[in-house]
C-alpha cells in the first residue's frame, strides 16, 4: 500500500520523552479549516496510531478511490466526516467524536467545523476539550480564523494549545518559515489566558511529525504531535480549589436514607467536614460518602457521589454544596460573555432561563452591552446579538442562585441560556462578574439613572442605535468603576 511506502520515508526514531506513567483521558479539540488539512491531520493520527480497524481501512480506501479527490492517495479526512450531507459537500458541519488509545492513555478527539458560520458548533466542541490543536497552513501562517478559534478556545476555558504548522512539505521544510509563524502566533496568543502553547511543524498528508518523527526537519528538536499528546498533563483545575458539589437530585431509600447526589466539580471533601448550602447559608457535617461499592472516607473533583449529612438542610436540585470558608456567590445579577447558538437572534422581550450547574433560574431582564470583534478581539458597544456572535451581557435573575466566576471555578461558573418557549439552548456563556443580592434602593445605594447620564457624561449622544449602545456601555462602565471601589450601584436606564 502507498501509505506504507510513505511511512518508510520517515524515520521512526522515537523522541526522547520522559517515561510516562500517565493513564487517563485527554480530550482534544481540533480546529482549522478544510483547507488547512485538519481532517487529514486527525485521520492521519488515527491511521498511524492504530485507531482504525481493517474493515474501516478497506472502506476508506474504497471511498477514497471513488472520490479520487486526492489522486490515488488515501483520503484520511473520510475517517471523520460521518454524515452523508457532509460527505457530499466535503465539509464538516457538526462535531464528530473519535476515540483512540496509545499505551495507557485514552484520547477523545473532538473534531469541529472550521467555517465561520459554524462558530457555534466549534464553541460547543471546544467546551468539552482539555487541549486544542490549532492548525495553520505553513504557506499562509495564522489567519483571521486562527485568531477567532483561539478566542473561542480561550472563552470556553481551554488552557493549553498546540499550534500545528501544517503542509511543511509545501514550504520546503523551511525552518525560517516555521520560526516566523511560531513568533507571530506567540504574539497573538499573548492576549489570551493560555498557560501552555506548543508549536509543532507537521505534514499531515505524509505523516511527518504526526506519529512519526520527520527526517526532513532535523532542525526541529521538539516532540512529535503524538509524543506531546502522550505526555501532556490535561488537568486544568487546581488541586487546592474550594469544594463544590451542585446537587443533581435527592435520593431517598429505606431506613431513612436521605442523600444528596451529584458530581464534585472542584476540590475535595472528607467525612467530618463542615458543609454549607450556599443559597441558604445553612451548614451541616458530612456523615457519609455513599456509593454502591461501599462508603468512602473522602472524594474529589470528578467523582459522582452521594453525600449524607448529619442534619437535614432541606435543599433540593439546584443547590450548591460548598466548603465553609470559600463559598460561591449567591447572585441575582451577573455579567457574562457568551456565544449565541440559536438561529433566532437575542430578543430582550423573549423569555429566557439561566441554566447553571444544576439550577434553572428565570431571567428577569437581559441586555447586551458589547460584541467581540474577531479581528481586533476588542469588545465594541452593541445591544443586539445573533447566531455565532460572542457578546458581553448583563443578566438580572428572578431569584438568587449559587455560582462562581468562570475564571475561578469553570464548572460552577458556566451556564447555558434556555428559551422559555420551546426549551431550546440559545446561548452558552461564562460568568465574568456576579453580584451577591441586588442592593435595595435607599440603602446607601447610588442610583445611576438615564437623566443623570444624559445631562453630563452622555450629553454628546443621540437616539441612533449606535448611540444608545454607547450610552449603555458608558453606564455599565461607570457602574463597574464605582463597584470596584465598593460603592453599591443600581443602574436604571
Amino acid at each position, binding site marked *: 500500500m502507498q501509505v506504507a511506502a510513505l511511512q518508510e520515508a520517515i524515520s521512526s526514531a522515537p523522541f526522547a520523552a520522559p517515561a510516562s*506513567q*500517565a*493513564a*487517563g*483521558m485527554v480530550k482534544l479539540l481540533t480546529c482549522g479549516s478544510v483547507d488547512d488539512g485538519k481532517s487529514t491531520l486527525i485521520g492521519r493520527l488515527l491511521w498511524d496510531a492504530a485507531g482504525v*480497524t*481493517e*474493515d*474501516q481501512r478497506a472502506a476508506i480506501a474504497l471511498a477514497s478511490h471513488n472520490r479520487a479527490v486526492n489522486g490515488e492517495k488515501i483520503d484520511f479526512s473520510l475517517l471523520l466526516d*460521518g*454524515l*452523508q450531507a457532509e460527505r457530499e459537500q466535503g465539509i464538516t*458541519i*457538526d462535531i*464528530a*467524536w*473519535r*476515540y483512540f*488509545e496509545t499505551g495507557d492513555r*485514552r484520547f*477523545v478527539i473532538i473534531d469541529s467545523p472550521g467555517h465561520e458560520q459554524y462558530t*457555534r*458548533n466549534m*464553541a*460547543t466542541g471546544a*467546551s468539552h476539550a482539555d487541549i486544542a490543536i490549532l492548525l495553520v497552513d505553513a504557506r499562509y501562517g495564522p489567519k483571521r480564523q486562527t485568531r477567532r478559534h483561539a478566542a473561542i478556545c480561550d472563552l*470556553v476555558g481551554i488552557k493549553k494549545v498546540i499550534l500545528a504548522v501544517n503542509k511543511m512539505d509545501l514550504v520546503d521544510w523551511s525552518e525560517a518559515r516555521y520560526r516566523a509563524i511560531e513568533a507571530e502566533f506567540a504574539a497573538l496568543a499573548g492576549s489570551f489566558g493560555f498557560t501552555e502553547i506548543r508549536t509543532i511543524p507537521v505534514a499531515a498528508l505524509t505523516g511527518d511529525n504526526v506519529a512519526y518523527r520527520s527526517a526532513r526537519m532535523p532542525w526541529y528538536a521538539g516532540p512529535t504531535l503524538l509524543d506531546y499528546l502522550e505526555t501532556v498533563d*490535561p*488537568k486544568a483545575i487546581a488541586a487546592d480549589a474550594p469544594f463544590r458539589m451542585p446537587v*443533581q*437530585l435527592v*435520593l*431517598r*431509600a*429505606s431506613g431513612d*436514607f436521605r442523600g444528596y*447526589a*451529584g*458530581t464534585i*466539580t472542584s476540590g475535595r471533601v472528607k467525612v467530618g467536614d463542615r458543609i454549607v448550602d450556599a443559597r441558604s447559608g445553612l451548614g451541616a457535617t458530612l456523615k457519609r460518602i*455513599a*456509593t*454502591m*461499592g461501599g462508603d468512602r472516607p473522602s472524594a474529589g473533583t*470528578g*467523582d*459522582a457521589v452521594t453525600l449524607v449529612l448529619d442534619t437535614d438542610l432541606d435543599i433540593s436540585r439546584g443547590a450548591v454544596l460548598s466548603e465553609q470558608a470559600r463559598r460561591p456567590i449567591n447572585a441575582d445579577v451577573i455579567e457574562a460573555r457568551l456565544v449565541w*447558538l440559536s438561529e433566532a437572534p437575542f430578543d430582550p422581550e423573549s423569555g429566557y*432561563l439561566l*441554566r447553571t*450547574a444544576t439550577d434553572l433560574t428565570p431571567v428577569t431582564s437581559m441586555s447586551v452591552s458589547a460584541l467581540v470583534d474577531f479581528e481586533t478581539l476588542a469588545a465594541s458597544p452593541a445591544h443586539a446579538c445573533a447566531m455565532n456572535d460572542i457578546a458581553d451581557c448583563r443578566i438580572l435573575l428572578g431569584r438568587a442562585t449559587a455560582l462562581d466566576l468562570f475564571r475561578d471555578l469553570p*464548572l460552577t461558573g*458556566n451556564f*447555558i441560556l*434556555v428559551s422559555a418557549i*420551546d*426549551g*431550546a*439552548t440559545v446561548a*452558552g456563556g461564562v460568568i465574568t462578574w456576579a453580584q451577591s443580592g441586588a442592593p435595595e434602593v435607599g440603602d446607601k445605594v447610588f442610583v445611576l439613572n438615564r437623566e443623570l447620564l444624559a445631562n453630563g457624561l452622555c450629553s454628546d449622544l443621540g437616539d441612533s442605535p449606535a448611540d444608545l449602545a454607547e450610552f449603555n456601555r458608558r453606564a455599565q462602565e461607570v457602574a463597574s468603576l464605582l463597584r470596584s471601589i465598593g460603592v453599591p450601584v443600581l443602574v436604571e436606564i
Partner: protein
Amino acid sequence: MTALVSHLKLLEAESIHIFREAAAQFRSPVLLYSIGKDSTVLLHLARKAFWPAKPPFPLLHVDTTWKFRDMIAFRDKTARDFGLDLIVHTNHEGLARNINPFDHPPSVYTDVMKTVALRQALDAGGFDAAFGGARRDEEASRAKERVFSFRSAGHRWEPRRQRPEMWQLLNGRLGKGETVRVFPLSNWTEGDVWRYIQQEKLDVVPLYFAAERPVVVRDGQLIVVDDERMRFEPGEKPEMRKVRFRTLGCWPLTAAIESDATTLDAVVEETLAAKVSERAGRLIDHDQAGAMEMKKREGYF
C-alpha cells in the same frame, strides 16, 4: 507529572452524572434494555447512580421473537435478581403479518420488528426519555450524536436540529411533542465496555464466550442456528464450530466469530487486539450506504 485518574473511572462518573441529570429533568424515563454487553454496563451504571435507591424507571425490551434463547433467559434472570420492573414489547401487528428475517430483507424486518415496535412501546408507556446503550465509536453517524438526543413528534431524528451541548450542562427542557434518547455510554468504546465488565465482575450472556455451536457459513459469515425456525439453503448443513459473539442481535442476522475465548479475560484480550470493527458482524448495517443514519432518522435508537 501527576498521576492521572484511570479513564474507566472518569467514564463511570460521567455516565452516572448523565443518568442523574436525565432522572431529575424528565417526567417519565425508561431504560431500553437489549440484553447485550452494553445494556449490562448501562444497567450497572443506573444501579450505581441511584444507589441505595432502585433506578427510578422500568426496563423496556423490544422482543422481535428472534432473540437467542440464552438472551431471553438472561433478561428474565437479571430483572428478577435486581428486583426491577421489566416491560417486554413485541409488534404483534408485524408478527401477524409474519414479518421475519428469512422472507424479508433486513431493512424491512428491522423497521417493522425493531423501529416501529420501539415507537409503539414508547408511545404506549408515555415515556418522554429513553436511555440507550449507543456509543459514538460504533458507527459514523453515531459519532455525531448528542448525549441528550432530541426526537421530534414521531420519534424522528433530525441531525441538523440537535441541541448544542456545552460543558457538562445537559438541557432537558422539552418542546411540544419532543422526546429524548439519552446515551450515558456516548464516550465509551467497545474495549471500555469489556474492561469495565471485567473490573466490576459483571455477568453477561453466555453467547459472548466461545463454545461449540451449530453453525452454517453463509456469504462468509458464521450464522448460529438457535432453533428449528432456521431455513437452510440447498446443501447447507449445520456443523459444530467453536464460536462466540462480539455483538448480539436477532439470531439469524448476527454473525458469530471463530474464537477460543472461553473466559472474560480471554474475551477482553481478543477484543482489544481486534482488527475489524464490531459492526462488521451486524448484517443490517451493510444493507446500504449510510444505513444507520437512515434508520436513526426513522426512529431507531
